[in-house]
């Protein structure tokens, strides 16, 4: 084996070693960058926040003392079942529910910028389509109904008696927090 061949082989070996070392460096840097990029999952907190928001808004007192209008949950059920019912001789259930939900969630929206919401109240398990009367109460941004991504939803069941009849409704809050 002559000197030129030996030298070429050494250069080739050196190149191979350098290539392997370069790959190791690249892998090390990738691992380092993955370590820097922390993946803090906020999904659990946002879920908790949405459930806390819908539960607390529904339980809040409206200021009226009679049963169909006492809490926001009562006024929403009333807005679904008899929207023209007058609370305390002043405003309809539908108006009261709208005012209370907007005011309540608005307070939280002041603290969390870019919080958008849609609150839907409908019967549990089915909803009438094209029938007479109210089939669904919707408060907030209706455009969120079609949004499928980056939204959080939380639901609460509304149960009680209205005019001697039991009712079971579901209040679903859809939140978008950017």
């Amino acid at each position, binding site marked *: 084996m002559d000197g030129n061949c030996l030298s070429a082989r*050494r*250069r080739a070996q*050196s190149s191979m*070693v*350098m290539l392997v*070392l370069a790959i*190791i*460096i690249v892998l*090390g*840097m990738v*691992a*380092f960058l993955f*370590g*820097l990029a*922390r993946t*803090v999952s906020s999904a*659990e*907190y946002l879920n*908790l*926040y949405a459930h*806390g*928001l819908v*539960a*607390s*808004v529904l*339980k*809040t*007192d409206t200021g009226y*003392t009679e049963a169909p209008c006492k*809490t926001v949950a009562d006024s929403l059920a009333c807005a679904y079942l008899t929207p023209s019912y007058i609370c305390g001789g002043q405003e309809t259930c539908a108006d009261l529910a709208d005012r209370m939900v907007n005011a*309540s969630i608005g*307070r*939280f929206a002041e*603290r969390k910028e870019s919080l958008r919401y849609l609150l839907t109240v409908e019967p549990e398990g089915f909803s009438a389509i094209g029938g007479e009367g109210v089939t669904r109460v919707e408060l907030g941004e209706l455009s969120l109904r079609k949004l499928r991504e980056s939204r959080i939803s939380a639901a609460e069941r509304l149960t009680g008696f209205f005019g001697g009849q039991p009712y079971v409704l579901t209040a679903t809050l859809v939140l978008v927090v950017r």
Partner: protein
Amino acid sequence: MEYIMMIFLIMVVVVGLIVLLTGYQITRAAADRSDRTQDRALFLLKQVTTHPLFVSEEGVLDDAKLTALATLPDGCARLEDLFGPDWFLEVETLDGPGAACAQTNYPACGRWELCKQDARAVAYDLPVNVYRNAGTILARDVLARRDLAILTVGVYGR
């Protein structure tokens, strides 16, 4: 000459790898510590909204219980015995007077602070209700009321 260059490069790479791995470990340890703090803050947030020491029902904090805890001289120490050290909670009603509750101004107040310190903390807030035992005072009656409030629970990052 080529061997010397190669050995030099290998040394550089080895030192670089050591630095990278050390940095990676330090970063991971800091991230783990931060994750633990966040997990604890979330855990405490859930505890406060369900523990009978604070609530009259789930998600509804009782203003009388909060006032009692806030005005106890060793209230914070007792809470730290139960839930561990270095954390705080703050409750603020969204309407009504925003003064901190004490024995002298209850129930005309709307803010409670427990174990609050002037230090950096990881905190979460959550919408809750506050059960106002004397919510509406009428001429011949006192009615309870559920108000909207914001609960903030934080863990000091020491």
